[in-house]
């Protein structure tokens, strides 16, 4: 066993210990398990939400995207969604607390008084989340095999990591994720700031010198290109991202777990500052451009450069940070998927299931979802990237129905919400699978419009159907309000 591997395992065991210890003798009913008993304060909510900002996707993908594409990678600095979170999340939290909701699907089902909508949202959510878990696991495999200098195969690494995370999720629920998230973020913060500063100075003598060197070697690399990943792509992606990011089903338990609205609002203030740390991830990517050129798998940029530069023990520390960046988001994803399948799909089909049985079933489902993700990790090679892209656009389709449900007079009916979400999802599936862009659908548009993120089309389809169907079903709903109320719940 080499030194870097020992360090990686040390951190893995420590996070397992923290995750299990987080149970603290609490009685683990579903509410305690799924949303931490709604007792988390600003700090834990911060680490859980921040965990979303630092997944393997940022760690490997952020530096890899900077390495491969340059300027367009700056889209990861999007502060607008924190502004949205300040308004959007407190009313969601309030409503969830009043009605004891545990999942995103609960929220839609309850707000629109429609179990059908709840099930649709649940299924869409699970379909979107599994590729997300798979992506984390694939990242984990890359990180461990790179950081252990090939001593451990990606397959073995993925098994070990997944067993660890499944264990603490089953035992401690969301509290386990919250505690390990603290360890993870401290470690990542130290590692990312250090290597993001050290590498530019070591190889180029400074940040500006590094960018000047890259600029001299590749003149158009740092700015956005005129076509393709152009400014209109950049802006439309920022906008779509803003709508989509809080629609991921696993974000909801974190919101519900918060002790107060205050914790959520304070996070809207701190999170943008925390995003600045991502600058150092970008620096690493740019440092790699001239130092390890020509990588086929651009996601390896960070590790290739690190291995070229540092001693094995420090590569181990980077590896440990990378593993935690994969495992903590995975734990929240596993927890959210299991809760949704048991409470929002199984319980709907079999309404007589007792709380105790449901509680037990949810834990088994954690294992089931973990195994399903493993299957796709090892068998779904390339389709998974397509699925993830689709997942992101998929959850974005939930935004209109959610947004309008928060207004005092909701203009959208349950039929409208269902129609909008379903047509939006159909549009996403068609666009993703057929590989369409706005340019191929509407070839006569000017270039600036062609470069718009194609997700905008699906969102437009969604909005049109939402409002058209709502207009037709409005009166009927008002007349039958009572009947609808009874048939729901």
């Amino acid at each position, binding site marked *: 066993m080499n030194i870097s591997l020992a360090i990686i395992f040390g951190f893995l065991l420590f996070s397992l210990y923290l995750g299990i210890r987080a149970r603290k003798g609490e009685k683990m009913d579903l509410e305690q398990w799924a949303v931490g008993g709604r007792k988390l304060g600003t700090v834990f909510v911060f680490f859980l939400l921040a965990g979303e900002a630092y997944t393997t996707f940022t760690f490997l993908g952020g530096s890899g995207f900077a390495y491969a594409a340059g300027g367009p990678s700056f889209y990861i*600095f999007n502060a*607008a969604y924190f502004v949205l979170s300040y308004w959007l999340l407190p009313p969601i939290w309030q409503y969830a607390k009043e009605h004891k909701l545990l999942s995103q699907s609960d929220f839609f089902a309850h707000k629109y008084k429609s179990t059908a909508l709840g099930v649709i949202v649940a299924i869409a959510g699970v379909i979107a989340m599994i590729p997300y878990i798979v992506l984390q696991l694939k990242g984990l495999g890359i990180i461990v095999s790179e950081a252990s200098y090939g001593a451990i195969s990606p397959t073995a690494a993925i098994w070990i990591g997944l067993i660890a995370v499944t264990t603490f999720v089953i035992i401690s629920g969301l509290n386990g994720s919250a505690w390990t998230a603290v360890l993870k973020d401290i470690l990542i913060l130290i590692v990312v700031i250090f290597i993001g500063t050290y590498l530019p100075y070591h190889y180029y003598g400074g940040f500006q010198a590094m960018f000047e060197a890259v600029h001299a070697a590749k003149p158009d690399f740092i700015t956005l290109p005129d076509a393709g990943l152009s400014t209109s792509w950049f802006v439309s992606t920022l906008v779509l991202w803003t709508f989509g990011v809080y629609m991921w089903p696993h974000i909801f338990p974190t919101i519900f777990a918060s002790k107060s609205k205050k914790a959520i609002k304070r996070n809207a203030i701190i999170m943008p500052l925390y995003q600045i740390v991502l600058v150092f991830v970008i620096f690493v990517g740019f440092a790699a451009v001239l130092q390890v050129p020509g990588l086929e798998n651009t996601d390896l940029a960070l590790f290739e450069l690190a291995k070229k530069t540092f001693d094995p023990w420090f590569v181990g520390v980077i590896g440990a940070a990378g593993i935690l960046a994969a495992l903590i988001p995975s734990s929240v994803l596993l927890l959210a998927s299991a809760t949704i399948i048991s409470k929002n799909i199984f319980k709907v089909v079999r309404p007589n299931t007792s709380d105790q049985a449901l509680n037990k079933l949810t834990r088994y489902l954690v294992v089931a979802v973990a195994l399903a993700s493993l299957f796709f990790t090892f068998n779904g090679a390339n389709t998974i990237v397509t699925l993830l892209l689709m997942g992101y656009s998929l959850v974005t389709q939930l935004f209109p129905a959610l947004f309008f449900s928060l207004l005092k007079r909701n203009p959208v009916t349950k039929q409208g919400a269902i129609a909008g979400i379903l047509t939006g999802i159909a549009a996403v599936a068609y666009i993703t699978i057929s590989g369409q862009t706005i340019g191929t659908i509407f070839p006569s548009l000017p270039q600036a419009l062609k470069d718009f993120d194609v997700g905008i089309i699906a969102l437009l389809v969604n909005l049109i159907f939402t409002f058209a169907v709502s207009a037709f079903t409005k009166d009927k709903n008002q007349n039958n309000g009572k009947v609808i109320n009874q048939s729901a719940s």
Partner: protein
Amino acid sequence: MRKILMLLCLIPVVGSLIVINRVEPYIFGMPMILAWMVFWLVMTSIIMFVVYKLDPDKEEGDDAL
């Protein structure tokens, strides 16, 4: 007032369209386009802080943990 402040946070999104797609000048060692994005992270945080201070719907009690 608070709404106007929030709208300010959209400037980076719109601004990136027009002015800042360029490398020079360097600011704190970062090319213009990157510096702009980072500058607005800081500004968003400051603006959100002010919005929070002006927020009438503030709850009592501290709950850091």
